[in-house]
């Protein structure tokens, strides 16, 4: 009785998550070693240059939406989530089962964002004002306020899940259709030679482009929602 036939089912995406996390770990170890060897006053190139561009981009994005003081606290988390999400959205091209095509993974990520929003609201306004805000301006408003609080959680998880899953489904349908089309050619019909011509462009839109845009939308929404609750300065 191994883990695939045991009563406790382990989902396939767990192995993909372990692989992606160990890949990120080795990437960061290599960047650390390259950083120790560089000259501080020379122009950076190679892996160090990519790391510096990424760091500057994340710091700029969080400072634009949250202000300088809070950006120092939240920027490391945003950069880590973005790195994990980009690699797992693109991992469908390598043949892994994408972790973000599983509702459990996206719900966990959206739950962290939701807890961040609510705890920032608690810290800024206090406990009494938070619960009193549900019945403002008049008591029947408790229903729209309740749904307005739940809405970011549901919409962020379902948006990421729907985009990545539907990308994979559409590519599967296209491969099946081109297989049926090319089976009408007499001699070389066994091999799907129409699909390998049309599939790369569609992969570029549905997997690569959609993966990057969904990551950008996720981190922008997180920083904007949390930045709305912080005290104005």
């Amino acid at each position: 009785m191994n883990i695939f036939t045991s009563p406790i089912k382990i989902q396939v995406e767990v192995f993909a998550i372990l692989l992606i996390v160990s890949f990120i770990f080795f990437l960061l170890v290599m960047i650390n070693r390259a950083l120790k060897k560089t000259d501080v006053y020379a122009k950076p190139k190679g892996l160090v240059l990519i790391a510096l561009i990424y760091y500057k981009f994340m710091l700029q994005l969080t400072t634009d939406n949250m202000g300088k003081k809070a950006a120092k606290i939240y920027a490391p988390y945003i950069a880590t989530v973005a790195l994990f999400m980009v690699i797992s959205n693109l991992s469908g091209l390598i043949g892994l089962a994408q972790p973000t095509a599983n509702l459990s993974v996206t719900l966990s990520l959206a739950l962290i964002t939701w807890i961040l929003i609510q705890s920032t609201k608690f810290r800024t306004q206090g406990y009494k004002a938070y619960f009193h805000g549900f019945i403002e301006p008049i008591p029947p408003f408790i229903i729209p306020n309740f749904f307005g609080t739940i809405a970011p959680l549901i919409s962020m998880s379902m948006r990421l899940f729907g985009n990545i899953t539907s990308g994979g489904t559409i590519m599967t349908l296209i491969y099946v259709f081109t297989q049926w089309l090319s089976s009408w050619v007499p001699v070389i019909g066994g091999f799907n030679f129409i699909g390998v011509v049309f599939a790369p462009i569609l992969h570029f839109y549905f997997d690569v482009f959609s993966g990057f845009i969904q990551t950008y939308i996720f981190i922008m929404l997180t920083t904007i929602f949390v930045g709305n609750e912080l005290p104005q300065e």
Partner: protein
Amino acid sequence: MDISVGAGLIAVGAGIAVLTGLMTGIGQGNAAGKAVEAVGRNPEAENKIRAMLILGDAIAETCAIYGMLIAFLLIFVFPGIVK
């Protein structure tokens, strides 16, 4: 292929539920057009305009997402409950 009438009606219902994405496409395309126009009028404020465009898109997209949610519930969860 023999599928019962009930299962066929569930599929038709799921197809109708996804029609909520129709107006989302029109609305978000409109918003993108106005954003491009605003950048053309004031090229310095590009970062702020991009942030506002993405936030507005994400909130307006909840219509299409809730339609997709109903379609998923109908296809995957509803047959298990009814039987």
